[in-house]
């Protein structure tokens, strides 16, 4: 099974969130946008450890913008589930909750609304009641019986993993040890208990230790009086066989140290390991049929490499498909700020939350994004850490290569714009294959512009394709404008073409950026940067020629010099020299396009 949709109405940050999902969910978004509230919404439906008293929400849980509450005010959280027929246990639990209009979909709903027939506007939380029902039919109630089989576990942000590991009751080690011990004969353990007792006795035989023990016992007795005496002793552990298992501790470094000595990061990792083992166990023992594991900000305390390694593995585990086997009974739900985690997240798992001034937080997801398999592969491959930054940006400028990536922030600074302040990222697609990125950003509703080469006319087809793509993914709202662009493209009126596609956020330079710049107002700066390359006499002479006069015939050799320095390095150095010169209009246009929209 997998979660195929979530709809949240009037709950905390959300006026209406309604997004498609594709199983695992990676929730990204700025602080205070409602990531934790989204997890809490899922808990209201799925978490058996949440008592019903916590499902009795309060008036403060309604979305602030709702205004005065009336008898129709309702908080509604609906989760749709699909593919629930493979596992017969899951099917048995869910089949009653199919939608009448779509038997392939199960809907589970939490609702909090005024009591029936209240007769006045609700004024206190007493006037409300909650209910959990399925199939969109309020008479089909579900409760603990379902939550025990399809369970949400939450690992909260910044949890005290070390403390939890150290406390027996809260330790994720406890159920594992108890399970392991359940098949051990207590008599076998007794022997071990005896040996521990012997060791303890041997310890006490040391005079210094027994003196200390006596001293403690005497002073305690003096302070407490005989009635309160707890008879303190020194020793390693309780030795009674039923209590022995509680003495088992997780040790690190080959048993050299206790877990308290582990780093925060390791402690978290250990916690997560034990937790996933416990989930596996529950399913194996048929006490549960599917786990929804929600982890808030798992990046806390984890080194970037570890973040990628751990979560890559976890996602792998939850989406592994073996032929003729049901899908793994595990769904992962993460909230994160980490591009490292986003970079390993399954492509269709991204759910982006964004605050709006009037409509609360809204969300968009990549679940139903229309990508061909090749495009999806491309994007997944390219979604490395740097590009995963896109997800955390409010706006994106897509460029072809590193030169733009380094230079554009400086050009923006020239325009008095600090990209970081606006949350705008410049992302290189390392080539001209913009399509999957455009689809991805459109799906998530992130404003963007594209800077691409005209390539002596070869680029025109690519540009019109992108225009068509943008219009297609937004429901062909601008079909008339697109037709116009097609019309102009058939003529030689390149200026009109550029102006029109700019309205779609696509900006063209005539040639490769460096060539454009040397032919434009940046010749002196480029020559100066080239000279820093400390070339030999032959190539220095070539630079001299360019300084005197640069012609189109020099292009190949010029670019070879830039390559020799390294495109990125060259761009970084050039970036320090561009102050005080007018920003090329197509770059200014691309920057302004995004700035206006974030």
């Amino acid at each position, binding site marked *: 099974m997998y979660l195929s949709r979530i709809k949240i109405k009037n709950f905390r940050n959300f006026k209406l969130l309604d997004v498609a999902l594709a199983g695992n969910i990676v929730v990204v978004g700025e602080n205070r946008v409602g990531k934790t509230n989204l997890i809490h919404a899922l808990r209201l439906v799925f978490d058996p450890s949440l008592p019903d008293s916590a499902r009795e929400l309060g008036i403060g849980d309604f979305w602030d913008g709702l205004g005065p509450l009336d008898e129709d005010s309702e908080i509604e959280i609906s989760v749709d589930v699909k593919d629930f027929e493979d596992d*017969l*246990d899951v099917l*048995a*639990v869910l*089949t009653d909750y199919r939608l009448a*209009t779509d*038997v392939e979909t199960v809907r589970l709903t939490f609702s909090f609304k005024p009591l029936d027939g209240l007769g006045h506007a609700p004024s206190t939380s007493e006037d409300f*009641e909650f209910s959990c029902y399925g199939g969109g039919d309020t008479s089909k*109630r579900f409760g603990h019986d379902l939550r025990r*089989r399809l369970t949400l576990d939450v690992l909260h942000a910044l949890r005290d993993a070390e403390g939890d590991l150290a406390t027996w009751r809260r330790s994720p080690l406890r159920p594992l040890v108890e399970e392991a011990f359940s098949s051990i004969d207590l008599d076998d353990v007794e022997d071990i208990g005896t040996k521990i007792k012997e060791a303890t006795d041997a310890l006490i035989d040391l005079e210094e230790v027994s003196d200390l023990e006596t001293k403690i016992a005497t002073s305690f007795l003096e302070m407490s009086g005989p009635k309160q005496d707890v008879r303190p002793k020194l020793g390693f552990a309780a030795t009674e066989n039923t209590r022995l298992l509680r003495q088992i501790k997780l040790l690190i470094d080959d048993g050299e140290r206790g877990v308290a000595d582990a780093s925060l990061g390791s402690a978290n990792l250990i916690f997560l390991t034990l937790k996933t083992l416990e989930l596996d166990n529950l399913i194996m023992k048929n006490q549960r049929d599917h786990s929804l594991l929600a982890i808030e900000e798992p990046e806390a305390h984890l080194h970037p490499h570890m973040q990628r390694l751990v979560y890559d593995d976890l996602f792998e585990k939850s989406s592994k498909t073996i032929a003729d086997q049901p899908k793994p009974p595990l769904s992962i739900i993460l909230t994160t700020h980490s591009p490292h985690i986003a970079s390993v997240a399954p492509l269709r798992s991204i759910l982006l939350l964004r605050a709006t001034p009037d409509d609360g937080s809204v969300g968009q997801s990549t679940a139903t994004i229309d990508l061909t398999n090749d495009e999806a592969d491309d994007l997944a491959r390219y979604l490395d850490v740097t590009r995963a930054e896109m997800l955390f940006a409010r706006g994106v400028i897509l460029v072809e290569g590193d030169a733009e990536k380094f230079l554009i922030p400086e050009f923006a600074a020239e325009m008095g714009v600090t990209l970081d302040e606006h949350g705008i990222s410049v992302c290189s697609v390392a080539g001209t294959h913009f399509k999957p990125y455009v689809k991805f950003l459109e799906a998530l509703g992130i404003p963007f512009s594209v800077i691409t080469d005209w390539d002596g006319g070869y680029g025109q087809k690519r540009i019109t394709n992108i225009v068509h793509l943008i219009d297609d993914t937004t429901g062909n709202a601008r079909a008339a404008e697109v037709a116009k662009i097609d019309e102009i493209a058939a003529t030689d009126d390149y200026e009109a073409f550029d102006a029109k596609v700019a309205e779609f956020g696509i900006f063209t330079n005539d040639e490769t950026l460096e060539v454009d710049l040397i032919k434009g107002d940046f010749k002196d700066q480029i020559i100066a940067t080239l000279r820093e390359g400390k070339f030999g006499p032959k190539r220095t002479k070539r630079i001299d020629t360019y300084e005197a006069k640069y012609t189109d015939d020099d292009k190949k050799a010029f670019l070879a010099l830039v390559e020799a320095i390294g495109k990125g390095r060259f761009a970084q150095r050039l970036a320090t020299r561009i102050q005080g010169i007018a920003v090329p209009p197509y770059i200014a246009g691309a920057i302004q396009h995004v700035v206006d929209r974030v």
Partner: protein
Amino acid sequence: MWLIVSNRALYLKAAEDLRSNDGQWQAYESKDHCVVLAGPGSGKTKTLTIKFARLLSEEIEAPRGVACITYNNECARELEHRLAGLGVEPSKRVFIGTVHSFSLTQILLPYGRSLGVGLPEEFSVATLQQQRTALENAYNEVVGGPANPQNARFGMDFYRRSNLDRTKPEWRGRDQQKALLVEAYERHLRAAGLIDFDDMPLLALRALRQNKWLRNALVAKFPVLAVDEYQDLGRALHQMVVGLCFHSGMRLLAVGDADQSIYGFIGAYPELLQKLSERAEVETVVLGLNYRCGSLIVEASEYALGEARGYQVPENAAAGTVYFHPLTGGYSGHADHFFSTILPAIEARNPELTPGQIGILYPAAFLGDEIAQAAEIYGYGIIRTDANALYPRSSRLMRWLEQCAAWCCNGWRNGNPRWTRIVAEGTRLFSEALATDEQKTEFGRSLLAHMWQHRDSQNDLFDWLNEINGALLSPLLIIGGRTLADEKVIFDTFVERVGPNGDVGKMGLGQFSGEGAGNDRINLSSLHSAKGREFDVTVLFGMDDGRMPRANSTQADIIAARRLFYVGFTRARTELHMAFSAHNPSPFVTEVEERLN
């Protein structure tokens, strides 16, 4: 709530009883499809219930469960009662009920419109009056003419139950008028947002045929399907069983006895059980040891059936006796003779016997009237189970009200029946109307408040019923309309009959509370309703030619009547009495008498 087998020791202990009987043990140990062909008194219900408990405890793990379909609510209640004794409590994992309630609660109500079988968005079960109206409209449309449309009912229903696949040309080919009548009748019901009882299994079967997801869902919920009294469950159920068990992966545990098939006249076919047992993938077990009847009665029962079955009795079983009573003076004379002469002799032979251990069985309800009148003259109490009974014994609502009445009379004082059971049964009865825990709690609370106020056995039944109806039942019956429509009709009819203008006359609460229980009254029952019951002393009354079998019977009717005779015959433990007109005995009686001599 998932842990429904609360005490494994209970059924494990009970299972030890099965060990000495090879057939019962084989059924208990069966691992795949199993059909149990069980003769009378062979402990089939016991075997079925113990196996059921074992399945739930050892083989079928939560959240999946077991469904058990049986012939009527009475049988369902009996199974529930026995399972409770084995530590199996009702839960979501267990379904026990009729094929109608299985169809309704597991298929039609949960999935409704998605089934694509033409169910209206909100539907309810038609009352008798609504069915009559629909039939009248359909009849005028299809047949017309001056005849009473209601007379077409029996033929139409039979045709509907027997011809299941309407996509085949035979549907209209066999009897076009009947087919068109059925179609029109159903159309009129649907237009009014209604289905009738026959619709339930028919629509469910069609839904199962059309929707693979539905078959999968049922297999997921109920990996094992148990069917009791298979021989009387009809074609629709048989096809459901074949589809679910032999094509979709459900496991079957069927129990029945073709010799005891007595509902052929409404569309049951004893051959279906036979066919089932002949399938290659089915393990067939025969239970041939009769623990109920005396050895002589077992021997005579084969003459009654007219077939040799070779059934045995356990060692040391009593012989039992078969009595023939040729009587005169019409049926009122027969009844009088029974109470004046035969009954005192029975009592003299069996000093320990209570009236509750006596059953008088007859082929038609008017014979019950004769016996009831005589009983009254001779001062015997009776419990009737036939078409002229105060209300159908299978009514869950009426049986529950009897319990409520018993609590009002003495139960509040002596804890019998227990209050918790009354509340639990009531909550289940009205489950459709009591959706939330709050509503359930509120129901229990107001029920107690009402009962406490009316706890007096001197109460007039008519007033008591009206008060509980006003205070509690009416809203529940309206909301529970889809599952309780028939119960509401039964209730309303009964209230009318015990009211000031009714035919029954004044009745006290105490009298009503004893209706369902008590060993101090003689059981009167039609032969059909006696199915599955047993009595120490069984009297077959009115065993005349022309009644057993009826006059003008076809060969098939005679065979069916003979099976009915056999069913009545095998209810007896120690004494079997046959009362008949001296000049006109049933040929079945004559044959038994001749062969015994």
